């Protein structure tokens, strides 16, 4: 049933393309309907799967022959981790559409690219054949490019091209590793295979081989996850993207990279992962601190959020580097949590503030007294901000808590450094909150064109904000809802070699 999330999204694309050129309203409704349907299927399918079987084991959804000559199958399956991320995609998709309700320029094409991106993302999270995963992964690059290049703002073409090229380069690094692994696996198995389960459980790649293939594949995916120093596409891309674009980029697409790191790189090459553990953790911590530090000095509101995404993804990567259950658990939970929270942050900055004020410069925003003019936006950003700081009660706290726990067991000194990152996180969030909404600067002098009041926050925006806040709050208060899906996965065969010291 979960496979229908992919098909529904692409069917939505088809319907949208058939709509007449200027049918903006119809396009929005079709898109929203598709996203809601997709999310519904995701939730129902996920719960069904969780109840039926063992959510820790990989449950097959579809498996048919595709290209037997190279051992490729059309193999869709899910375990707890996939379910969590599929649900995230569903929620983020709906929220993104709600916040793009005001797109007027070529609306149906916008939503067509949007739904194509969503479909591709669903595909990545549900694929258990490496080639199929790669196909869906690359598939998402093109809609991303067009969403930003056509409907974005600051330096949109440059940002879009940078994002596309970085993603492409990353995925090609992965391709090199995959081809090499495929050849070696074929030699060991006697027949070609691209089945992830076979490649990770039946094949034992030689240690020396793993030591150079793992960084290749990991970095290839980590580029998209915003690992320092390959993160430079992220701030530019996020700022250039239209609101829904940034919400999806930071919320879901960056998670594609992290997911690839976990599902492909770490599971297939556990000895390599262990070998490079320290390097990954170090880069992750640098990312956490660097992202937070740079966010602290930005003048552009959206850049603050963009860099904060790099910082938060650093936590995900740190969690992955711990190679113990609790750290990995935290990493996956942080993927979910940050997806929701980053979506909310970009929604406030992009849709609620920028679309009305047409500026993101703090020097200008300070004078606009937005706390009074847009109280809902102020409140939404406050809640999103404290959630992003890691305040208990919201999903971020449980996730970061677990990552820190896991990290402390393995890298105590680096954990303390990430604590510094948390404090910086408080600082830049507070600074942004103050400067944008609650500044004490005198309001701008009234010239003629300042008199029009700002448009009030519309219904779809409120709905989207409430959806995301509720999601973060629910998981913050009842984290077991998701943790019951994630934790059993790490006890399964698939992760056994990774977690048991990479031994045979």
């Amino acid at each position, binding site marked *: 049933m979960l496979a229908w999330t992919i098909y529904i999204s692409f069917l939505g694309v088809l319907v949208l393309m058939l709509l007449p050129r200027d049918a903006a309203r119809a396009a929005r409704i079709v898109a929203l309907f598709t996203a809601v349907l997709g999310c519904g299927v995701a939730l129902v399918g996920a719960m069904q799967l969780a109840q039926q079987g063992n959510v820790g084991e990989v449950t097959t959804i579809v498996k048919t022959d595709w290209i037997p000559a190279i051992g490729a199958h059309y193999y869709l399956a899910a375990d707890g981790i996939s379910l969590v991320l599929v649900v995230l995609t569903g929620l983020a998709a709906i929220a993104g559409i709600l916040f793009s309700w005001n797109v007027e320029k070529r609306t149906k094409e916008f939503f067509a690219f949007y739904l194509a991106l969503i479909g591709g993302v669903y595909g990545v999270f549900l694929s258990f054949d490496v080639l199929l995963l790669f196909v869906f992964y690359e598939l998402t690059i093109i809609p991303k490019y067009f969403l930003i290049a056509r409907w974005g703002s600051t330096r949109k073409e440059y940002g879009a091209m940078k994002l596309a090229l970085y993603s492409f380069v990353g995925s090609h690094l992965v391709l090199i590793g995959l081809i090499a692994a495929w050849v070696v696996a074929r030699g060991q198995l006697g027949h070609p295979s691209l089945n992830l389960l076979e490649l990770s459980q039946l094949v034992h790649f030689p240690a020396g081989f793993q030591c150079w293939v793992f960084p290749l594949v990991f970095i290839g995916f980590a580029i998209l996850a915003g690992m320092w120093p390959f993160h430079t596409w992220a701030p530019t891309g996020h700022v250039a993207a239209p609101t829904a674009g940034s919400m999806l980029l930071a919320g879901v697409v960056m998670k594609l990279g992290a997911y690839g790191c976990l599902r492909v790189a770490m599971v297939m090459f556990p000895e390599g992962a262990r070998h490079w553990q320290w390097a990954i953790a170090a880069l992750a911590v640098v990312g956490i601190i660097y992202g937070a530090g740079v966010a602290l000095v930005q003048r552009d509101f959206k850049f603050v959020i963009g860099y904060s995404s790099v910082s938060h993804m650093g936590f995900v990567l740190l969690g992955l580097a711990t190679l113990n259950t*609790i750290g990995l*658990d935290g990493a996956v939970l942080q993927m979910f949590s940050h997806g929701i929270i980053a979506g909310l942050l970009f929604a406030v900055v992009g849709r609620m503030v920028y679309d009305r004020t047409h500026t993101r410069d703090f020097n200008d925003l300070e004078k606009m007294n937005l*706390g009074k003019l847009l*109280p809902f936006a102020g409140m939404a950003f*406050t809640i999103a901000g*404290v959630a992003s700081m890691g*305040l*208990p*009660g919201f999903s971020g*706290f*449980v996730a970061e*808590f*677990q990552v*820190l*726990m896991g990290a*402390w*067991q393995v890298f*105590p000194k680096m954990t*303390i450094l990430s*604590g510094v990152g*948390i*404090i910086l996180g*408080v*600082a830049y969030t*507070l600074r942004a909150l*103050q400067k944008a909404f*609650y*500044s*004490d600067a005198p309001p701008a002098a009234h010239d003629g064109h300042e008199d029009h009041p700002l448009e009030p926050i519309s219904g779809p925006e409120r709905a989207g904000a409430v959806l995301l806040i509720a999601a973060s709050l629910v998981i913050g208060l009842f*984290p*077991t809802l998701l*943790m019951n899906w994630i*934790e059993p996965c790490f006890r399964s065969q698939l992760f056994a070699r990774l977690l048991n010291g990479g031994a045979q």
Partner: protein
Amino acid sequence: MNHSLTTLTLVPLFGGIVVAGLGSERNKLVRGLSLFFSLIGLTGALCLWTHFKGASGDLQFVEKFDWVPTLGAQYYLGMDGLGLLMVMLTAIVTPLAILVSWSMNDRAHIFNALILWLQAGLFGTFTALNFFHWFMFWELGLIPAFFLIKLWGGPKRGPAATQFFIYTMVGSVALLLSFLAIWLATKTKTEPGCFDFITLAGMGKSGVLTTKLQAAFGWKNIGLMVFFGAFLGFAVKVPVVPFHTWLPAAYSEAPSAVTMLLTGVMSKMGVYGFLRILLPIFPDQMRQVLTPLLWLAVATIVLSACAAFAQRDLKRMLAYSSVNHLGYCLLAMFAAVGAATNVNQPEIQKAAGLDGVLLQMFNHGLTASALFLFVALLEKRSGGLRGLDDFGGLRKVVPVFAGLMGIAIFSSLGLPGLNGFVGEFLVFKGVFPLAPWAAAISTIGLLVTAIFLLTLIQRVFCGPLNGRWAQLPDLTTAERFLVLPSIVLMFALGVWPQLILGTIDATVVALVQKISF
């Protein structure tokens, strides 16, 4: 399972949401509803008080519920005398704060909602017994406080609010890291780590905790480091000199209702933290650094009193005075820890000090909020002026006001017959036998406090009348009723402290036993 504690916390939370949703047009309704909700909180607290079995030192109204089993996070609520006292204090001060802000019209719905949410956070902190959700409420109290200062405060509110937030956050992060370390140390292959305050207290008492920490981290002094982290978290809140620099700015810039809450209740969070968490869980470490701690307490008492003496702004003076009064609590606590091992000292003396601490917490909360209430009333009449030199001879113009404020000042001074005396007396009674030198130096603080408070009375109320205020109106009937409960309690508790002592005695004894060998 009795759900009274959860209900108590949820009522102001829900009330805040309702009030916030009312919008900015219906201020009368807003105020009425928020008062209503805070009074429900008061009623609830009173009910708990009457149902509380003072004779038993055990936890009552316990609620326990597995929340995130793999992380050892339980939803564990419980109340002993200490918690009850604090809840009572919160329940009393909050309606007063709401009443003081009756005339505030600027975004009244958000203002009152924030106060209610702050109350919810405080109720939650004082009833939680598992670090995970205790920390949640601890942090949750910060946000409304920050916004209350930031949006409705005085001219320098921005930096004051930010400083307040950052200081407290840094302390909280240190606290979090310490508890992470504890969790890791108490984790076994099959069981998750421990966050339960009660269990950890048991481990602390037996010394098992220190051993486990050392085993987990391989560092002899790790127990001390973890202790410092937790200490920092609470030290910022109390505050202990030298972590107090956020306080004068925050207290003076905040609107008076908020200052009442800040000084009356939020500062007690720090002391509560010491009593509930630091003392029971780290008795060994505290004994190790006892002398420096005593010095810090003494410094807090003396230096803040001297600083208060040097102030010209009434609110700042009272702010430093708050620090001073809480210093006595710290002194007694540290002394009690120091003496806990000494089996020669009768238990009763050890208990005396801690009795004093609890009493002082409650009384100071009451008195200080009353004092700030008076300052608010004065400010309202003077159009915002609150300098020491702005007034003079007000006794002649506003005799009732002068009289009632005088009572509060004398209570703060520690005049026998009023509530402030009992607490301070018990503190010194407890400290003298245990750490005489500290008690001796702290009396300087008593002296200086008396000086500046009397100076306050002299400058503001006595002496020649400052012509400016010749037409100053006295307290209205409503205002008299507003201050009446506090005054009555000041007298009542001064004359008959058994009102409270009866309820908390058993708890104190249990506390002493927890920290003894």
